[in-house]
């Protein structure tokens, strides 16, 4: 047995070692260039197929074999981090994953036309695609990945949606709900940032800086948490992330809520002509009304630094984020362009969700957050939703939360 085993092992291992470290080194003159591209959603596939057809037509001198895969933009980095070499050549990701992708060395900095990309897209989207070293690491694809307020004009007027308390009072009067994804760090940020508290990536590019628990800010974190506890306890409030939000839209129980463009179609369908969108409202904290801030969100297209055909992959990435492709994407998927020219298209301007994003833009920050932020902030949000059942001192809650947010990333 041992002998046989050794020989089998030997055969197997010769196979193994034969491939060790062998970079796929395709022949330069190879007739076909294989590329794999990841789009964020199944519904993007028809659009991508169109883009690929146009791309091939625009490059008749080369033959491409392009495969489309689907990888949710929100989880993209997780998959890429588990094995960069196996990831797609070109992938779409939400800009919050920029830091982890940069740390893993997965992104190829733009080589040939960085300046023209910078010029063609909105400054915020370019900022989101820029690495700590100032190089452009990705191609802005959409500028609509932030959040804003959806509301139903049957119940709410334009003046109602200016303040959160106005929303809540109208909703509870009508026996309806206002939704906010409290136990989700991405949205949760807007309360604190709005109150002038800060949380952002520190200079090491890995950990976070956060002053939510500081005592010397004009509005303290404890006051914000108290305001949030009051909001959560309001009969017109419901904590609802994407799924419950959609369900609430469909059954009519939710008449306003904070979410993003990905739910615009459902909202438009459920509310019909009463569907409207606006910037986020103000909310009351420590007796004053403050404007809720937000993360601006961008979808970016990255090129895998480990791709065998980075040049061609960059061509494709540039093509799929150019003005025409962005407009096409808007037409097929209602996604807001980051391209300045595409953004000025009348049809784009007329879209309520995109108008709302533009209105929110002055209060939005580009998302640069280390990985430790999410679980810690979600936990605090969850405690608030549950009404702080153990009656823990608010400052302690914040201290714990900040300890979690600012923890070293290697833990």
């Amino acid at each position, binding site marked *: 047995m041992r002998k046989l085993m050794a020989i089998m092992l030997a055969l197997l291992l010769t196979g*193994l070692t034969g491939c060790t470290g062998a970079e796929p080194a395709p022949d330069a003159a190879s007739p076909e260039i294989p590329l794999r591209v990841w789009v964020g959603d199944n519904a993007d*596939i028809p659009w991508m197929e169109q883009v690929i057809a146009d791309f091939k037509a625009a490059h008749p001198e080369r033959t491409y074999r392009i495969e*489309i*895969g*689907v990888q*949710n933009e929100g989880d993209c980095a997780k998959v890429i981090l588990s*094995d960069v070499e196996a990831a797609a050549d070109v992938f779409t990701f939400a800009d919050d994953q920029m830091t982890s992708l940069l740390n893993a060395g997965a992104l190829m900095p733009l080589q040939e036309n960085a300046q023209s990309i910078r010029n063609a897209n909105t400054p915020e989207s370019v900022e989101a695609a820029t690495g700590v070293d100032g190089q452009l690491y990705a191609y802005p694809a959409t500028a609509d990945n932030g959040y804003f307020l959806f509301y139903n004009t049957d119940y709410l007027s334009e003046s109602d949606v200016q303040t959160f308390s106005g929303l809540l009072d109208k909703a509870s009067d009508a026996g309806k709900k206002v939704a906010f994804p409290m136990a989700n760090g991405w949205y949760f940020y807007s309360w604190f940032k709005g109150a002038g508290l800060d949380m952002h990536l520190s200079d090491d590019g890995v950990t976070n800086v956060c002053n939510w628990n500081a005592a010397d800010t004009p509005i303290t974190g404890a006051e914000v948490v108290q305001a949030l506890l009051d909001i959560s306890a309001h009969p017109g409030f419901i904590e609802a992330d994407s799924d419950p939000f959609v369900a609430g839209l469909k059954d009519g129980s939710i008449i306003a809520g904070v979410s993003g463009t990905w739910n615009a179609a459902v909202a438009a369908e459920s509310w019909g002509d009463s569907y409207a969108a606006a910037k986020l409202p103000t909310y009351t904290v420590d007796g004053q009304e403050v404007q809720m801030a937000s993360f601006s969100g961008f979808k970016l297209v990255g090129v895998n630094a480990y791709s065998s055909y980075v040049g061609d992959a960059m061509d494709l990435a540039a093509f799929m984020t150019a003005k025409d492709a962005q407009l096409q994407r808007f037409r097929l998927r209602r996604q807001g362009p980051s391209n300045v020219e595409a953004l000025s298209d009348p049809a784009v301007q007329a879209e309520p969700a995109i108008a709302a994003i533009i209105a929110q833009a002055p209060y939005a920050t580009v998302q640069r957050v280390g990985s430790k932020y999410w679980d810690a902030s979600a936990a605090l949000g969850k405690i608030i939703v549950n009404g702080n059942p153990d009656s823990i001192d608010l400052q302690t809650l914040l201290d714990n939360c900040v300890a979690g947010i600012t923890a070293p990333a290697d833990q």
Partner: protein
Amino acid sequence: MNRPFRILLRHVLLMLLAAIWLTPIFWLVVTSFGTDSGPNIRSFFPADYTLAHYEALLFGTDSVSQFPQWFLNTLIVAVFTCLISTAFVLMVAYAMSCMRFPARKPMMNIAIILNLFPGFLSMIAVYFILKEVGLTNSLTGLTIIYSAGSGMGYLIAKGFFDTISRSLREAAYLEGANEFTVFWRIILPLSKPIVVYTVINTFLMPWMDFVFASIMMNSGVASEKTVALGLFSMVDKVNRNRYFAQFCAGGVLVSIPISVLFIIMQKFYVEGITGGSVKG
């Protein structure tokens, strides 16, 4: 309490239990025929019935759901996994049950020890091993994952072989049969229940597993998925509201052959487990 009443009570209880167990399954079936494409949360029964989800699942050109392709992929993996694993399990079980050799005890102990490690601890290393041979994102790679370690699941089969009387084998040895003949012509024909049990279990593995599959199949290309992976992707955050009913339809379609298999093989299956676990 008189007897007829007790009998009635017994059957009422059984009906109640059966209802608890079957209600979710029933909901799966009705939802798959409902008109809602997301989860139906308004009422237990859908407002209206349609075959659209099955149609979309089986004949749709939607590149998300390539159910027939997934089904085929899984079937191929399942058939080969089943063949290899069943062979491995029976071979190891025979060696451990009917033969005596110095390495026997140590090997059995090692198998026990290995079984105590959480299975996917090693998955990342396995992934890289397979990647070095170029077998990730391939059905061959998946088959290897499911069947390579199957020899360690020999205990129940061994328990079954242990119950087969030794005198049968000894008679055969006296007639000059070698171990191979005994294994092939005497033990195996007597082991129908345990063979069926092993076949069912190993055949089902690729239909049930998604963790290993999701680590191995990371290309994101829809046509490379297995049923489990594909159905799983239909109910993630993004897709649930569009594909939940198709997920249910897919669940029904997968469950039908498995249920039939179970119901037909139920007798053997029970004999197999108990024969083996009596001594397990």
